[in-house]
């Protein structure tokens, strides 16, 4: 990799906003530092590494969508490199990985690494954006179904406030990026760069690989939209913040003022593609507020059970909490059970961190549950979650088919029809 002077202005760098968790117990140990959170997501929740790097940047080339992960470290240099080399980075896929040592002229990694060290020092991105660990992870995520979902998830997260406003939801719950003290504009630009880079790579995926997917929920790769996506990425300027509108029954629509004057069929089709893949699923929230409001009159203390789908993330938590608040029932919620499966467990855990940070510690108790498609296992979970027979449960069903069936069936058997309210979270109305 050799970058010439003309290349210097064609990339943006993403850097995780630095933070240290104040509480080092339990789940929060995983999210002690930004890098440990990134390790957790990238290894599909198999690992965390409590190493503080001097620098961890992802450079996104705005011409090609290519990504370079640059990690530098001064202390315990070998420790970080060894960690990256030896742990199972299931979700990592960048075009180049460069490890550099700060503040030294020489490196113990031989001539080849020394040259790279020299090259990478000259990289001077157009801008460095401070983003959340989810967005950083999204930019480094693999080009497969789940990797693409993570990019969409990060972009959705960055639009939290705007989506809530479009849905006319009021309330003072902090957004997922606010708990990391990340600025909305930087998060939007960072996650959009990660998304567009992902779309470009998704557009080049081998179609035979996609045919082998056994699920219907695979997002179709872009075709003629690709040209427009390239245009958007190259023009990712400072004032890129989109507007979101909501048409009841039809869903949410995103538009960029910056591109409103561009009369180009490729740009238009690419914007339609982004709308479809990023906001299409969110139709499932059309009408959920009304469902909560209908419950409000007869509802006493209740428990909320959220069965996580593979496309859900922190935005979903934010919207659900905002809707509970708007319907006036958030205070009545005693327990919030976040149910992940082996597939969704990393993003469900990350979402739990958000819940813990945005809700006061007293009041709602939030728990992470790991369930599975095995009925013999999910029945045990449903019995555990059922608790007091007379307390009402609202079950938001978005998990895998077999899990929803066996879980809901057991809830009914345990609590009776009058104490269980199941609401399907599905874009198909």
């Amino acid at each position, binding site marked *: 990799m050799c970058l010439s002077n003309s290349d210097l202005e064609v990339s943006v760098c993403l850097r995780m906003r630095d933070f240290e968790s104040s509480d080092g*117990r*339990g*789940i*929060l140990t*995983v999210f002690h530092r930004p890098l440990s959170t990134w390790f*957790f997501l990238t*290894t*599909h*929740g*198999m*690992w*965390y590494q409590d190493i503080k790097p001097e620098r961890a940047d992802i450079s996104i080339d705005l011409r090609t969508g290519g990504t370079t992960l640059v990690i530098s470290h001064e202390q315990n240099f070998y420790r970080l490199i060894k960690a990256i080399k*030896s*742990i*199972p980075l*299931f979700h990592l896929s960048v075009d180049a990985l460069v490890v550099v040592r700060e503040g030294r002229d020489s490196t113990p990694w031989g001539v080849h690494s020394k040259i790279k060290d020299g090259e990478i020092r000259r990289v001077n991105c157009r801008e460095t954006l401070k983003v959340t660990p989810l967005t950083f992870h999204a930019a480094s995520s693999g080009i497969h179904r*789940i990797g693409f979902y993570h990019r969409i998830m990060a972009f959705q997260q960055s639009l939290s406030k705007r989506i809530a406003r479009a849905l006319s939801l009021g309330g003072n719950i902090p957004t997922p990026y606010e708990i990391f003290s990340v600025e909305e504009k930087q998060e939007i630009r960072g996650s959009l760069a990660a998304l567009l880079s992902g779309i470009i790579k998704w557009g080049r995926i081998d179609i035979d690989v996609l*045919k*082998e*997917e*056994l*699920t*219907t*929920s695979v997002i179709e790769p872009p075709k003629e939209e690709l040209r427009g996506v390239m245009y958007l990425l190259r023009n990712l300027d400072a004032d890129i913040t989109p507007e979101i509108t909501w048409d009841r029954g039809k869903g949410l629509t995103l538009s960029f003022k910056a591109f409103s004057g561009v009369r180009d069929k490729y740009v238009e089709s690419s914007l339609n593609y982004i709308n479809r893949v990023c906001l299409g699923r969110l139709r499932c929230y059309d009408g959920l507020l009304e469902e909560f409001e209908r419950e409000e009159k007869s509802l006493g203390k209740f428990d909320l059970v959220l069965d996580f789908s*593979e496309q859900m993330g922190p935005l979903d938590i934010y919207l659900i909490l905002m809707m509970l608040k708007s319907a006036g029932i958030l205070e009545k919620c005693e327990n919030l059970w976040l149910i992940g*499966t*082996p*597939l969704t*467990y990393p993003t469900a855990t990350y979402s739990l961190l958000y819940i813990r940070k945005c809700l006061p510690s007293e009041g709602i*108790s*939030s728990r*992470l*549950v*790991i369930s*599975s*498609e*095995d*009925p*013999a*296992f999910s029945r*045990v*979970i449903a*019995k*555990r*979650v059922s608790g007091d027979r007379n307390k009402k449960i609202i079950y938001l069903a978005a998990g*895998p*088919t*077999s899990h*929803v*069936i*066996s879980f*809901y*069936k057991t809830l*009914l058997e345990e609590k009776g*029809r009058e104490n269980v309210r*199941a*609401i*399907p979270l*599905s874009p*198909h109305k």
Partner: protein
Amino acid sequence: MPCDELLKGAHIEPSFHLYHPDMVYSNPRIAEIDILLLLNGGYVCIELKEEPQSSPIDSLKFFQNGLGSQAVLYMSKKSLGHGEASNVAVLNPLIITREDFISEKLKEWVDNLPKFRKKRREFFSIDNFLCALLLYGSPGICNLLLPSKRESYKGPDLVVPFDRSEDLDDFIKYRISLIKLVKGLTRDTHEGRFNETAEGEVGDLKSKKLVILIPTLSPSFLKEVVRSIELIIEEMRSKTELEGLPEVVLLCTERSSDYCKKLQCKLGEGLSKIKSEVARLEEWSSKAVEEASGGGTILLIGEVPKRILIELVDKIYEKRDESIKLASLLWRPSHPENENDLKEFIKGNKYDFKSREEIELVLVEL
């Protein structure tokens, strides 16, 4: 250290695959294990090879035991000749012979194999996840998810249901104890037992009528579905031999009617009682429950909209009709063909490990 000493208290798990966590939908394998030797504080992966001296060329695997990278051991079926060694530069490619490895411990394990595999089949999704933790998980993550009894901190951060081991099946408890052993989280040898009888045996269909809901499917998945339903019908046919042919109803939408036709065409041969019906999604739950009344099974394949799933459960619950069963097609390890080979190998006879554990799509009652 003598082999028998090393194997004392060890758990040996032969011949299985580990799948990527999205194996619910697709199944690229991420690890093929010939023999996994689980020890206190680590594990050893053993490859069985005809010619282990050259095996690193086609099989260069490294695994994690949570403490550092671990090279694979290669096992030769015959004693190595004088001066024979690996010609390939690989970190400590230790080669051992079968004679060194065979011990009373391995022989004892043969008796546990069928019941262990039966339970793994029943809890496959969660067991695959636990196996991933076993191979790849850091001790920190394992301790977070699967806290030990001695864990001083108790609170909302403990992950359900692993915080209450009394709720868990003996097999899951046993697997968790193995993870703790390998990750050095406990000094005890593995605790617990797994039951000899598995409840809810997969693929055991007692109904005479099958109502299949067919949403839009990917072409690859349709192929798998056809193969699986053929086997289910064959099984039904053998069970209802004296009472006539099983009855199959295919329920689809306009959009999925082509898939339905393909399925009907494939299944129709030799099956006189097969019919298909196109219905709007809004009608699916009513029609399915009506058709399955009196002892049928409603089989859900692929991604059926969540609304339909809720309606189905509600309708069956309201009818109080316990004869209607709900089922889905899930990935499960097939009964391995090489189980006898493995037993022969442990007894010290010939072996052939060409086929390891594979997965198949089977009917599971929900």
